[in-house]
């Protein structure tokens, strides 16, 4: 063991004269990380080069297929971005990963299914889609906001002063609990949102690209929510208080800000965004189940890290980047390497992005915004 040998008394002689082996100085970890980085760059570079060659020789994807993939990636990424906002805001304020945030998203999606299914049976879904969409959105946002507020109140508030990993473990428990509670409530099978009305789901031209209406709707709603959130955080008094709490809880309290209330608001706003994302997920992919929250949750967390935790614009951008990477990545990089069944590896790509980003750029592409104590 390296520690044993390095603990020998070295005496008054300056240490710099002593040559240490690689293993004592931990340089080998750096070397290992460099190797990982090079391998990752090498694989991506090789795959991409091969892809370009294939495109050039005309045996690759058609440009239309590629464009469709990118659009699908953006639509999915917008949802990741919306979920990522919740992670990012909570991490910014409390400095802990709310692992159960994916389940908040899932609860929104499930609530959306219950309401839309009911409306579909009433006929309102067909006759007046806009109204029913608004109803569905309202209920979903309400449910997921309530879920986060309850979560904060019951599970996280008592632990605010405990060691860092304790709330994380708790949130894993909350996530597990919520998943299985929903499994018990609605059963294991995947539930389908009713189909969108014909006039909406048909393809239409938009900025020169043929787009499905559903994706347009998803992008539109995501954009509106994001703009609303931006306005809320940057332009309202509560938003200002929120930023103050994220910067320094104690000083904020001294300034007369009710920290508890701001923290609840933060959770609630994150939950509301996740609720919107839940409905959009249902509209786009239609099938939702108790497991819907897990993977998007993890991926949204990745998106939050890519964009820089605590950075709201960054989270949205991170979502879009991850969505596109995940949708295009397998075909762009893995397929040219001759790996079969690449669509199965979609999640492997997403997790690899997660690992690589956390390893090499944990502060994100656009910079973290954390309070001083959390930056450690």
């Amino acid at each position, binding site marked *: *063991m390296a520690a044993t040998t390095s603990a020998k008394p070295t005496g008054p002689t300056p240490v710099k004269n002593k040559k240490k082996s690689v293993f004592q100085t931990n340089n080998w970890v750096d070397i290992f990380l460099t190797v990982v980085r090079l391998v990752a760059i090498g694989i991506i570079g090789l795959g991409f080069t091969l892809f370009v060659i294939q495109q050039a020789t005309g045996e690759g994807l058609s440009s239309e297929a590629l464009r469709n993939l990118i659009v699908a990636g953006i639509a999915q990424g917008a949802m990741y971005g919306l979920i990522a906002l919740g992670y990012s805001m909570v991490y910014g304020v409390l400095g802990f990963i709310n692992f159960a945030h994916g389940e908040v998203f899932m609860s929104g999606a499930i609530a959306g299914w219950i309401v839309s299914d009911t409306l579909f049976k009433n006929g309102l879904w067909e006759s007046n889609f806009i109204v029913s969409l608004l109803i569905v959105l309202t209920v979903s946002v309400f449910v997921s906001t309530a879920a986060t507020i309850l979560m904060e109140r019951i599970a996280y508030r008592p632990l605010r002063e405990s060691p860092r990993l*304790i709330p994380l473990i708790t949130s894993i428990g909350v996530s597990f609990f919520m998943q299985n509670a929903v499994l018990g409530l609605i059963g294991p099978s995947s539930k389908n949102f009713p189909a969108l009305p014909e006039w909406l789901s048909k393809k239409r031209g938009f900025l020169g690209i043929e787009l499905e209406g559903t994706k347009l709707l998803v992008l539109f709603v995501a954009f509106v929510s994001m703009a609303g959130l931006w306005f809320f955080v940057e332009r309202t008094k509560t938003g200002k208080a929120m930023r103050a709490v994220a910067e320094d809880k104690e000083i904020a309290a001294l300034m007369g800000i009710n920290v508890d209330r701001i923290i609840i608001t933060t959770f609630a706003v994150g939950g509301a965004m996740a609720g919107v994302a839940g409905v959009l997920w249902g509209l786009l992919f239609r099938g939702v189940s108790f497991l819907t929250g897990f993977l998007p949750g993890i991926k949204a967390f990745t998106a939050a890290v890519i964009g820089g935790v605590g950075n709201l614009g960054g989270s949205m951008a991170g979502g879009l980047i991850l969505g596109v990477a995940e949708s295009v990545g397998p075909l762009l990089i893995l397929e040219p390497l001759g*790996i079969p069944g690449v669509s199965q590896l979609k999640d492997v790509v997403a997790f690899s992005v997660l690992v690589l980003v956390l390893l090499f750029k944990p502060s994100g592409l656009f910079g973290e915004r954390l309070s001083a104590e959390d930056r450690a």
Partner: protein
Amino acid sequence: MTATAANTSDAMASAPGVRSATDVDWRRSANIGGILGITAVFIGLVGMAVGLDKRMLIDPVLSLGYLFVLAIPLIGGWIAAREITLEGMTAPIKGARDIVAGAVAGLVGGAVVAMFLVMLNAWDLQELLPNWSDALLDMYTFGQGVGVGIVLVLVVGLVLGAIGGAVHVIPAKPRRLLSIAVQWVISFAVLEAVIDDLLGGFGLQAVADVIYARRGGLLIIPGLIIGAIAAFVAHRFEGKGAELKTQYMELEPERKNQVSKQGLIIMVVLGIVLPIFLGKIVNELLSNVGLFILLALGLNVVIGRAGILDIGYVAFFAVGSYMMAFLTSPLAPWRESDGILSAVFGWLPVLNWFVALPIVVLTAAIVGVLIGTPVIRMRGDYLAIVTLGFGEIIRLLFLSDWLAPTFGGAQGIRSIPGVNLGFAEINGTDPRAVFYLVAIFVAIAIYVSSQLETSRLGRAWMAIREDESVAEAMGINTVTTKLFAFVVGAILASFSGAIFAAKVGSVFPNSFELLVSIIILVVVIVGGMGNIPGVMMGAVVLIGVLGGPSQPGLLQEFSEFKLLIYGALLVFMMLKKPEGLIPNAARNRELHQEEALQDAWLKGDKPGTTKDEVDDAGPAPSAADIDGSLGLGGATS
């Protein structure tokens, strides 16, 4: 625990004031009642009540489902009537007021359930919520129809809540005896399979037939007798346990060692002899528990000792299983495919389990280093997520078509032979043999982890967990030290994986989902992080009673709900007892430092209180506990 608290508070009451029965914190009781009602409705809607109703505990009066549902007002009443007394404050005298507080909570809870029953009766939402069923209505109205049922629910809530509150009123001694009696009766009912099996093994099947009903469940009269015996024994031997303990503590160190050794020998002999008398089911259960003890001991090194939250721990279990399957199965896919592997390793014969084991362990250690090295410097929460990512990547790769020629994809690897001893083969068909095999490895794991605990490495882990920067300043190489924890954890998990492969005979990617990691995490946390007996106990209780991810436990009816319970348990433990059931002394101190300081301050003592005094004081609530939450503070010494 409550008994000691009450004792001390009684003793300290200097100016007793009798309060009137209406001196109740009405709002608090009503709030608790509301929570009770919602809990009962929730348990009904997730299907637990009806699902567990199939299992009879006490024939024919009490099923597991009813036990769950009826325990809610009982516990709620108890909570509603509970008051927290700080050290040095006068304890209130318990009386009619507490019964009223409990009854109010129970009644409000009953009212919530009654409202739910009206809705259940009026609307049909079964299409959306599968458990919105007549069976539930039937159960919650005690089979009496809605009208009578609602009255019954209210009455039952009121009465049980009052009883729950009344628990505080009973003097400490009868309360203790009563609780012991109830615990024993419920244990006898829950452990029916084991006891039946054990009695059968010793040729006492007739006794089992007398105690248990034919369709399962304890009979009433034997139940009463068991309770009475338990209470009598508890009464007769009260304080004997503590006496023995002090006797043991006062022994000379050498004698102490001797006694511990004798105890160990008795345990080992029991471990060898007992399974001979046990049947297949219980042995199967024990070997599953053993596999999880191995995993939990491994994770305990990683989380409990070194403080690294690894939630992709299942990856090492998967690597152990797959590597064993890869080397020992004659039908391993890579042998038949014409890839590089079969070209290079085609000469490799189908290995014996024991020959393959060192290779498996080595592979797991290498994977441990490969996963550990990059993550070791990350901050704790990111590390957790990255390990999760690695765990999922490994599972998805095993599942993918890409590596299917090597690992079989979704089909997995089949026909893995058992452990060939030359004269016999250990495989899943003989759970007793598997148990012995597991037990040997568990013994190794216990030995290794207890040796590591006191070694230089173990102390380095502890130092890192307490404060990494300080540990580094003291000359500990934190990177290699943490990496060692990772590797030790990986090796223990690979043992478990190797045995698992031989036991089950085939490995599939979906045996290695994230939930396995989480279940192991729950086992470690419930048992007591960083404490070997605690972790083992956690595995026995949770895996034995509730069951593992795909292994049924004693309460097979739970299989649908065990994950729900695991999740709730994890949250509950983190909130109320983060140090676990059998805590590790150092970790306990760490988590309850504030409380210990506060106690010392309240008592007007210097921090150096002697151990006995602290023990006498019993658990004292922290400031956080005072605002009405459960104060299961735990010992502070």
